[in-house]
């Protein structure tokens, strides 16, 4: 168990405990101000979890909008809708057995779906390239080898695992050389001893940009086969997801973005109008 794994596990469990404790406090606390500040714990834990999942832009946006905007609004509303002299603002609830059992059933069904029925992971697609009489199946993985790279997708933090699968090599193959080439940087290479079946090689410290890769099978007599990944399988390295989100928002989601801006403007005007002080004659 590597050091970074230990740290990541500890961080996740601490954040998960904070989020669950906050959520339970929001649901159960008798003091409404305490529930509002427990909501703060949940929102910060959610932001930290986004950071653990390497979605840094969303983590910052969550804190900025949710904590800096929505939570401040909620706390103001709590303070404006009670008489100012109560310190211990009571927050009554009607905790009947029906609500509790309904939530338990919901939780149970979700847990069953998550753990037992659904198969979430799918391997990325293989691409077959024929060269030198060999059928070479090419595949890419994320840096930790766990998930397949999305089709034409992005590798985060500059590390990627490339794999070839050769079941029946034609010729004496001893080494597989993975090479990644980007227009702006020097090519990165790694040489892995050949294994029948799947051979994986890891490349790390890749700079940002678009990378094209190839695998060369070689043996004692020189190069046996060379498989270039097709253009559709080239991957992009991003540091963080800001560029990806920005490209999506300015590309396929442009209309949604504009509509949401108009909606926010309407909400702004509507809220200002609704909360005005009525001047009673």
């Amino acid at each position, binding site marked *: 168990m590597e050091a970074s*794994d230990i740290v990541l*596990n500890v961080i*996740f469990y601490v954040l*998960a405990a904070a*989020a*669950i404790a906050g959520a339970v406090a*929001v*649901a159960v606390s008798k003091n*409404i101000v305490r*529930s509002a500040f427990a*909501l703060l714990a*949940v*929102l910060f834990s*959610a932001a930290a*979890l986004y950071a653990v*999942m390497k*979605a840094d*832009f*969303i983590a910052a946006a*969550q804190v900025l*909008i*949710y904590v800096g905007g*929505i939570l401040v*609004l*909620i706390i103001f*509303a709590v303070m404006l*809708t009670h008489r100012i002299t109560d310190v211990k603002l009571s*927050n*009554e*609830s*009607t*905790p009947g057995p029906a*609500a509790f059992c*309904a*939530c338990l059933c919901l939780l149970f069904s*979700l847990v069953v779906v*998550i*753990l037992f029925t659904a198969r*979430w992971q*799918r391997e990325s697609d293989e691409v077959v390239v024929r060269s030198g009489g060999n059928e070479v199946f090419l595949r890419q993985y994320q840096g930790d080898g766990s*998930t*397949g*790279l*999305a*089709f034409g997708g992005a590798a985060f933090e500059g590390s990627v695992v490339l794999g070839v699968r050769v079941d029946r090599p034609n010729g004496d193959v001893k080494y597989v050389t993975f090479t990644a080439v980007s227009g702006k940087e020097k090519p990165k290479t790694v040489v892995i001893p050949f294994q029948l079946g799947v051979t994986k090689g890891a490349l790390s410290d890749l700079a940002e940009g678009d990378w094209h890769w190839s695998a060369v099978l070689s043996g004692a007599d020189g190069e046996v086969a060379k498989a270039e990944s097709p253009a559709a399988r080239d991957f992009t390295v991003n540091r963080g*997801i800001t560029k*990806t*989100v920005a490209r*999506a928002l300015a590309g396929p*989601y442009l209309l949604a973005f504009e509509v*949401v801006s108009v*909606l*926010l403007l309407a*909400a*702004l005007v*509507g*809220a200002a*109008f*609704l909360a005005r*002080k009525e001047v009673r004659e």
Partner: protein
Amino acid sequence: MIFTRHPLEHMLLLSAIVFCCGVYTILTRKNAVSILMGVELVLNAANINFVAFSQYTRIGGVHGNVFTIFVILLAAAEAAVALAIIIGMYQNFGKVDVDQADNMKE
């Protein structure tokens, strides 16, 4: 079953628990602002789901992140309007108890 071996399942479980706490809050609370807090919990649980699927699998590509951004924005708009309505409710009824705001019944 450690987090780093099955990151997706852990995140989904966590979001399921937060979701159920949010639903419990919506069902049992009497204060309108508390119900709004429950709605925020539900939205956050859904967001964790979106981002987890987008980052840990290739289902949906990277567009889960974009959906999360939109959900955050729309939650802000909805919270602003809901709180304006709650303040209007306080000015009209004198209290924000949803059980007692039943003036239209008669």
